[in-house]
């Protein structure tokens, strides 16, 4: 086999790697923020009393969880413009990631909310707190603490799945890899390095979130 590895050829692209990683991380942060926000709202509705709203949320969750992320993204980016909604690639990617994460977050948080004993919110109401206050101060913090590890796992999965946003020409880490290997024809080295960057990002992100979580939910088992 006459192939000689040359990882040195990648050194000049350090700046590009960093830019790509920043886009990947940025998309992950934005979609996590809005996705979990939507997830909290959706889970609250799913635990609520209105039957039609619960069914609607359940249908949304099933629809997203049973179709591939790449198809959801293509739908947003290619299909919605034909109805007059036009997104930039970056917007479509962020929206697709947010909507995808939201569905999983609803499912995770719903389980977390149901695990909070009913006595907790009854006691809150018994003290004369408004329902919204009971939810925000009593139920939600406990639900979040219950399912925090699962949420961290889902955020990591969203980050790793975001590699496909390169297919609608978002200049993320994967897109950077495609560009570099088309320049230097060292596809093996390039993809290997980028895979390792994803690995480091995933491990670091998980560590930091778990660490942050143990500070946030002090006094509970991490």
């Amino acid at each position, binding site marked *: 086999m006459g192939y000689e590895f040359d990882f040195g050829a990648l050194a000049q692209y350090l700046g590009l790697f960093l830019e790509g990683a920043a886009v990947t991380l940025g998309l992950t942060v934005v979609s996590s923020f809005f996705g979990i926000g939507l997830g909290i709202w959706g889970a609250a509705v799913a635990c609520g009393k209105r039957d039609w709203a619960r069914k609607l949320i359940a249908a949304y969750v099933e629809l997203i969880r049973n*179709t591939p992320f790449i198809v959801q993204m293509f739908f947003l980016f290619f299909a919605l413009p034909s109805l007059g909604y036009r997104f930039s690639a970056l917007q479509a990617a962020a929206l697709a990631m947010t909507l995808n994460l939201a569905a999983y977050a609803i499912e995770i948080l719903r389980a977390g909310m149901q695990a909070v004993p009913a006595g907790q919110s009854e006691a809150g109401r018994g003290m004369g707190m408004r329902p919204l206050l009971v939810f925000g101060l009593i139920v939600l913090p406990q639900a979040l603490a219950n399912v925090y590890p699962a949420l961290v796992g889902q955020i990591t999965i969203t980050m790793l799945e975001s590699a496909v946003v390169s297919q609608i020409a978002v200049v993320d880490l994967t897109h950077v890899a495609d560009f570099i290997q088309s320049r230097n024809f060292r596809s093996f080295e390039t993809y290997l390095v980028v895979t390792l960057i*994803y690995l480091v990002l995933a491990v670091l992100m998980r560590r930091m979130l778990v660490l942050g979580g143990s500070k946030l939910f002090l006094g509970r088992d991490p």
Partner: protein
Amino acid sequence: MNDFTNWDILRNLLLAVPWTVLLSAIAFAGGGIVGLILLVIGIGRRKWARRAVDLYVELFQSTPLLMQLFLVYFGLPMLGVDVSAWLAASVCLTAYSSAFLTGIWRGCVDAVPKGQWDGSASLGLSYLAQLRLVILPQAARMAIPPTVGFLVQLVKSTALASIVGYHELTKTAQILTNATFQPFIIFGLVALIYFVLCYPLTKLSRVLEVKLARSDR
């Protein structure tokens, strides 16, 4: 190019479904076999083997499947190994599913009470006999619902094979879109088809889980 009726679109998409199903089946069968071997190695007494299996699972679960695909499809030819899209997709998804299945099954084996190991050892069973007769049958009961659940993830993951040019459902949708300029109906139908493939599995996984929980009571 407007001579494609909606029926033509649906017909062409449905023709691609067997390829998605076939790729899923190969990845599941292959991943199941490799996963079982890794499971047996990983729960053995040798510490280094256990670590190696953990690392394997961790590597696949912490890197994007797309990168794994690219490494095999674009990277290996550089090293002189020629791979077709079909081979790259099968190999990658097999490795990917073996890692996830090992992880899932490992958790189930760990959940079998320690006394079962001690009890079967005291009966004089060899390691493999312990596994075959005592541990795995109990672990398998617990493993079925999450395994079916993973199958859903696997079917969805096969959509990524379209990116390296494997002609399954998603790739066919892209080709049809380029020919007909009707992305809305095409990707809507594609999502629907994936849903029809995956939803029964999701449902089945949930039913099995409830059944298992009930039988444990």
